[in-house]
């Protein structure tokens, strides 16, 4: 990566996210026709699903950085893994909020405890929310980094379970749209809009990740500097 691109990473991510999300929202409202069953409310799909997939991607990124930490013992991966989990939790909150509103308008309930995929996502979210409690219950240093990395790696095993639960669930409350079934599958306009919104959400996550990581690095350096000066 060139130096100028690396220096302008936050701006590139933020501008890409803003452009793609504005375009995706415009397409969702003015280009995509109403879905046969869901009608107008199907537009929630272009926000909710990209956010959920971005949460999975952030947790997976955190696990990858955790693996790099355990593999190389390079301490910088600890902060990167922690930041990715932090961003994943923000997107997890958004997934639960947007999913809950969609559930209310589609099923008449804010939450359905009988739906395995919803409960599994909640378990995944709570697992990563507990990451912070674990992390801050251990003193800073290599032990904290290693314990956090192992925890982040364990959590990633829940992602395929949570993702596949939507397909394997027998209750079929949660809709499945990425399918070969002609009646339920996405049309070209729906898929294009979804792709743009998903790319926008990934860019937004990238923007938050880069900014948050810069802030956390700065915080750590200032702490070191304070210790050196006192």
């Amino acid at each position: 990566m060139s130096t100028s691109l690396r220096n302008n990473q936050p701006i590139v991510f933020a501008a890409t996210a803003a452009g793609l999300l504005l375009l995706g929202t415009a397409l969702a409202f003015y280009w995509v026709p109403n879905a046969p069953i869901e009608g107008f409310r199907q537009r929630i799909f272009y926000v909710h699903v990209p956010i959920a997939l971005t949460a999975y991607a952030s947790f997976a990124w955190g696990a990858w950085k955790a693996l790099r930490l355990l593999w190389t013992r390079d301490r910088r991966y600890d902060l990167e893994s922690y930041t990715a989990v932090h961003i994943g939790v923000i997107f997890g909150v958004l997934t639960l909020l947007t999913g809950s509103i969609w559930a209310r308008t589609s099923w008449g309930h804010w939450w359905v405890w009988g739906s395995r995929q919803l409960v599994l996502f909640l378990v995944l979210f709570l697992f990563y929310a507990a990451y912070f409690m674990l992390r801050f219950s251990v003193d800073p240093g290599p032990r904290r980094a290693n314990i956090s990395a192992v925890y982040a790696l364990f959590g990633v095993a829940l992602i395929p379970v949570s993702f596949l639960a939507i397909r394997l669930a027998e209750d079929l409350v949660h809709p499945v749209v990425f399918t070969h079934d002609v009646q339920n599958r996405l049309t070209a306009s729906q898929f294009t809009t979804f792709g743009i919104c998903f790319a926008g959400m990934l860019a937004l996550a990238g923007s938050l990740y880069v900014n948050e990581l810069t802030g956390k690095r700065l915080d750590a350096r200032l702490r070191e500097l304070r210790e050196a000066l006192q």
Partner: protein
Amino acid sequence: MTSAEKYVTAVYLVVLAVVLLYVVLYSFKLSRLEREVSELAELAARKAERQEAA
């Protein structure tokens, strides 16, 4: 506005609100970091003065 339109609007507004909340919280963090940098600069200046005096 129909019920579906209200819920769809709510979803988009929730996302916007959470992103804006993040920006507000991050601006507080930046203010704190800026304050800490000023404190450390003062600390470094005082340390330099003490070293010169010695």
